């Protein structure tokens, strides 16, 4: 399958970026969303997001339910089609750097009764690198054990995944992403439905990734922990409300705009766009 590539609809912009990179005045940002708009079934759910994450850090994407946080992650990973805009990594399209970008989906998106063991799931993190026909070998197996050790699950390595607690399942997903040995990690609600002990453990692993110089982008819903955990955040509510260092962004004014903002307006317009009609 050809990997979906996202050509910029704004050709004038690309050479400009390349020039900057060539001049060496600054490295291209790790992740850059440029004017990203996403629609499901013709209905826009995320409008014109410009978001640049220049350097590795712990980055939180915060917003209410239905704000398009998960959609923003998926748009960067080629999992949802973009109406327009681009998402680039180190100035390059995803197809060129796919192996360096890891993804942890929401835990509820898979069937945990699926007949695989914990180690099987973690090994999946190495499949992208192995290609079509190569099987995981001893290097992959020892890497999987290392990753399980890192998330504190070495004792349940051979267990069927359905016999784990919610927090353990989330850590299995995290271990799978670690096994990919990526430079950028996208995590979709890794703390949802997870006990406090697992949360601490997951956060510890994420902080470790940051200290290794990797970028960790986390979709998160809990404002109390967000302030403590993230270096930088973006507030999203169908559009980018604000982004920057956590303390500067999580202001009462920004939060009010995020959690009681222009949603109704954007939703109404979105429905009209989907129906090819006009708003009242």
């Amino acid at each position, binding site marked *: *399958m050809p990997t979906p590539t996202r050509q910029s609809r704004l050709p004038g912009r690309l050479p400009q970026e390349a020039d900057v990179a060539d001049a060496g005045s600054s490295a291209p940002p790790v992740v850059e969303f440029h004017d990203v708009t996403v629609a499901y079934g013709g209905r826009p759910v995320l409008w014109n997001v410009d978001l640049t994450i220049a350097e590795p850090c712990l980055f939180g994407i915060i917003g209410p339910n239905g704000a398009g946080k998960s959609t923003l992650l998926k748009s960067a990973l080629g999992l949802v089609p973009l109406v327009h805009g681009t998402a680039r990594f180190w100035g390059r399209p995803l197809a060129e750097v796919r192996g360096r970008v890891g993804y942890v*989906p929401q835990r509820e998106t898979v*069937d945990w009764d699926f007949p695989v*063991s914990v180690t099987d799931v973690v*090994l*999946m993190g190495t499949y992208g690198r192995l290609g*079509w026909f190569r099987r995981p070998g001893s290097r992959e197996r020892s890497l999987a054990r290392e990753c399980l050790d890192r998330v504190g699950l070495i004792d349940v390595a051979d267990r*069927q995944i359905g016999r784990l607690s919610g927090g353990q399942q989330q850590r299995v997903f995290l271990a*799978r992403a670690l096994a990919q040995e990526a430079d950028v990690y996208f995590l979709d609600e890794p703390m949802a439905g997870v006990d406090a002990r697992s949360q601490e453990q997951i956060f510890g692993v994420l902080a470790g990734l940051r200290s290794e110089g990797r970028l960790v982008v986390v979709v998160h819903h809990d404002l109390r922990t967000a302030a403590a955990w993230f270096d930088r955040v973006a507030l999203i509510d169908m559009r980018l409300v604000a982004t920057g260092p956590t303390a500067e962004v999580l202001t009462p004014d920004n939060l009010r705009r995020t959690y009681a903002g222009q949603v109704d307006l954007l939703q109404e317009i979105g429905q009209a766009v989907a129906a090819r009609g006009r708003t009242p």
Partner: protein
Amino acid sequence: MNMVLADWSIDGATAMHAWAIATAATVAAACALVGTLLVVRRMSLLGDAIGHAVLPGIAVAVLVGGRPGSPLVFAAAVATGLLTVWLTRLVRSAGGLADDAGTGVVFTTLFALGVVIVTAAASRVDIDPSCLLYGILELVPFDTVSIGGVEVPRGFVSAAIVLAVLAAAAIATWKLQVFTAFDADAARAAGVPVAAVTGGLLAATALATVAGFEVVGAVLVVAMLVVPAAAAELLVRRLHHMALVAMVLAIVGACLGYLAAWRWNASAAGMIAVVLGIEYAAAVVLAPDDGLVARGLGRLRYAWRVLCEDRLAAVWRAEEKGTAAAVPVSLVQRLAVGWLWLTGRFVGPAGRLALSPAGRREAEMVVRSHRLWEAWLGQHAQLPLDHLHPPAEWVEHHLGAAMRQRIEAEVGGIGDPHGSEIPPEA
């Protein structure tokens, strides 16, 4: 054909049956392999749909001169199978139908189209509509090709080729199939060509279905796709084990089903499907972890443990109070006491039983669990005193040594809320 049958000697007839069994087993194994992936991907219905919808493809291929079982017919069937999937998606998006309804609309329409083509062209095409529904397993051995001087049934040859192709494809791409089946989004994000992997599975389904078509017919091929895999899912916990077990169950079912049909002079295809159903029922009853027998035994074992622990604790409490223990009244309680005596936890003559050192240790741990839980509940849930006993009576059978220590640390050495002493850990 019947005249031919009469000419066969006993040995020849046995050989014919052996070929039929081999063909059925080969087809069943191919279907079970594909079916394993369909079942875990919750796509069993799609297998059913493809099984029916390939009929017009086969009919047209035969109309233009393809022999049943020839590559042309297989290619046409695979193409129609993939067309089914595409049409289902089209109907779903264009007609706004739910997934299952869309599948239902497409496969019945295509199957009906196939029936119309077959019946309208009946004079020109050698397809018997009832064979399409029930298969022609009994006749498979009579249509042979010569391979190295040996007359081999054509149906067996095509089934064997299909099985070999599917097995090779499964071995080569198994890890991608597993990843896609388990978590398609993460697989796509990791660069797995998810659409190609799924397309491959659908093409494999069409291949296995066409091979099964000839042997057991369009309806019962679904049994071969789904039933062995569903049974295997109950028996093992890893996907590749599931595929292997499903294939073994399918082969056993095909052999036993054919032999039973031979013995009772019934439809071989029908009997094979019935045997597969019986295998599934057996798996439901006998599955090692979640089977009815295992669950029943687990419940019995638990009830027995509770009974024994309660007897031990009753005697310990009576000793503590300095009264005589209540005499067991029910038969099961007497049985439990007898068992505890036999296993050396009670000593002494009947009527004046006392705890042995081992029995005393066990009883103390039950009482300790009980009183710790009462203490914990009293402290954390602020329940009135009369609410504490029933939950403790239940939880006392479930606490391990480490949990007791944790609870003791939390309640901080205070006594049981009823004023009794909490026995120390053994």
